[in-house]
């Protein structure tokens, strides 16, 4: 890893000079890809606040001629959606932080410490992330009941911390196994112990990867619907996907309210992503030993 002035500090004229036709073509291509990818979102936005009478008369593709929030209001009140949002934030936030911590600890031992048998250990940890979730449900239910954790948010937090940390361990240890040893040597020669090296050298240098992990863990946990459906029974414990599930009736489903509620439920994740995007693009800092 190198110390390098970030590219945006290069003089502007040097950048602009490099905008040949190939560059414009690339930009156009990617913009087209992005627009196509966004089409479904446009449809959701179109229908999220459409008056139900409009949808019943003209279907999902019509342009709404009114703005209706009645369905969402009812849904919000009935399912205590505000509470569900808060629960989701708590659970996803806790999981992403705890899982990143676990990942850092594991990856340090595996990637930099090069513990013996690390491939097997890594494989064993990875199983957590790779197991089909439906196979875990009944046993975890029994265990949760034993520990009195059934229908608690803590059960879900613990389970997802383990599952996400497995991925985090894998990604981070893979990246750390090519960590510049000069930095480590320098720190050791300065008399730093393993702990200090971890927190003062390794973590700061790995910020982009850790940023990625934070974002992914938050979003993945946020959108989990299967295990929360099993473990979060009381309405006060529900997360957003579980609350959204009440819109799917036995015979009939409410697509308008689902669209609207989904938009509401997606805002926190989008905000989280946008906030942490900056860590993804911030340049790597140099010589982090203080």
């Amino acid at each position, binding site marked *: 890893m190198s110390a390098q002035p970030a590219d945006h500090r290069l003089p502007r004229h040097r950048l602009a000079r490099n905008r040949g036709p190939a560059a414009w073509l690339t930009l156009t291509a990617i913009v087209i890809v992005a627009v196509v990818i966004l089409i479904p979102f446009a449809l959701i936005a179109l229908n999220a606040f459409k008056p139900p*009478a409009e949808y019943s008369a003209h279907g999902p593709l019509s342009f709404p001629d009114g703005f209706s929030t009645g369905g969402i209001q009812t849904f919000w009140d009935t399912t205590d959606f505000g509470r569900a949002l808060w629960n989701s934030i*708590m659970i996803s936030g806790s999981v992403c932080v705890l899982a990143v911590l676990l990942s850092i600890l594991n990856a340090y031992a595996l990637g930099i410490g090069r513990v013996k048998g690390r491939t097997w250990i890594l494989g064993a940890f990875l199983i957590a992330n790779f197991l089909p979730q439906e196979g875990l449900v009944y046993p975890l239910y029994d265990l949760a009941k034993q520990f009195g954790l059934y229908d608690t948010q803590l059960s879900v937090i613990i389970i997802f911390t383990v599952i996400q940390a497995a991925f985090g361990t894998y990604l981070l240890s893979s990246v750390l196994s090519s960590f510049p040893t000069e930095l480590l040597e320098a720190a050791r020669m300065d008399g730093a112990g393993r702990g200090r090296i971890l927190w003062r050298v390794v973590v700061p240098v790995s910020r982009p990867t850790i940023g990625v992990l934070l974002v992914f863990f938050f979003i993945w946990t946020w959108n989990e619907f299967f295990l929360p459906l099993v473990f979060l*029974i*009381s309405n006060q414990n529900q997360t957003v996907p579980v609350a959204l599930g009440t819109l799917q009736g036995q*015979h009939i489903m409410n697509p308008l309210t689902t669209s609207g509620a989904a938009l509401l439920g997606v805002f926190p994740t989008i905000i989280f992503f946008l906030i942490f995007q900056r860590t993804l693009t911030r340049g790597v800092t140099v010589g982090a030993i203080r």
Partner: protein
Amino acid sequence: MPRKSAGLLIAALVALAGGLAACGSSGGSGGTASSSNVLKVWWYEGPGSAYQVAWDQAITDFKKQHPGVTVQFSLKSFNQMQQNASMILNSSDVPDVMEYNKGDATTGLLSKQGLLTDLTPEAAKYGWDKLLSPNLQVTARYNTKGVMGSGDWYGVSDYAEYLTVYYNKSLFAKYGVQVPTTTAQLTEVMAKFAKAGVTPFANAGNDYMAMQYLYEMELSQSTPQNVQNYERYTGSVNFHDAAWTNAVNTFQDWVKKGYIAKDSVGLTATQAGNDFETGKNPMLMSGSWWAGTFESEIKNFGWGTFLWPGNTLNAGSGGNLFVVPKNAANKQLAYEFINDTLQPDVQKLLANNGAVPVTASITGVTNPLNVQLIQNFQTLANDNGLAYYPDWPTPSFYNTLLAQTQDLMNGANASGVLSTLQTDYDQYVSSLG
């Protein structure tokens, strides 16, 4: 940077604290308030539905009768109940009374495992056994093997449902067709629509609708005894008999002629319902559960319902049940709530909002659409014409029937489909022992 690491550490501690607080504050929902003062009610019928309106009234009535009791209602999702009912009922987080699906694979299974309270004494005490006609009691009673139709009461339904044909009056007038009362007339009507380039029937292949068309066709040549054998394993079932063979052939014939659109094979029920609402198909054969939705959403044309022409047997049954879990804290209050749902005022609300009350009474019902809906049901119930639903016999039959009817629509060999159904059915029945 130390600051960043410290920041992470603090965040972690906050997260941990938050998590522990979450554990503490949530925890089991039972056991906080003094149990004899709280009635916990769960159902999964959506807000705005006839059931929600009626059952809210039941709660209001209950509160008036029991001034010291708090009613805690939680709206659940159907998926959550279906998927996790046994896990929920096996824990201490149970409500006192909850809506649950009728049938062997659901209530039958749970009753067999001892997770539901036996309601037989209450049925006698409150007179539910007189209020519900015998053919509506079939789905309320389960024997020791978990098979419906006989045995103890494990749930009570306060509404009924059946399959009916919804039709668009404007389109009927536009194309000059009348409501058909015989099979021949139905064929004429469909042919007329098809010739004008209109697909007569809305359908959803990726949902419960297509198999229900198939079932109605099968019922046209079936007998009550066959229905009993099929649903309650009282005798052997031959999927290659005249009734089933006729059904699959007719079904494929309709798809070929365009009476049912071939490209409805991938649609969901919601899409099919929307197709009817937006006037794309003049008819839809589906459950009475659509009536309330159509009443509130269809503003552009007049519509009505008629029974599937030519059949004496028709799919239908008692509605979802209210059950009392074995671990319920307040069973007596639960019984009283159930009784409240059967009272005339609640039944009338069901009727006026597009559902079929279990008493099938039309007194005080204002909308002629609802009167017609209830009267049609009464005809079926009086003639012993209720034949339940095609996916009830085995837990996997919903998935099997869905896949097989899709294959039928895509041109699979009809006899092969029947054989697959036969194998699946027999495999399950033999496992029942």
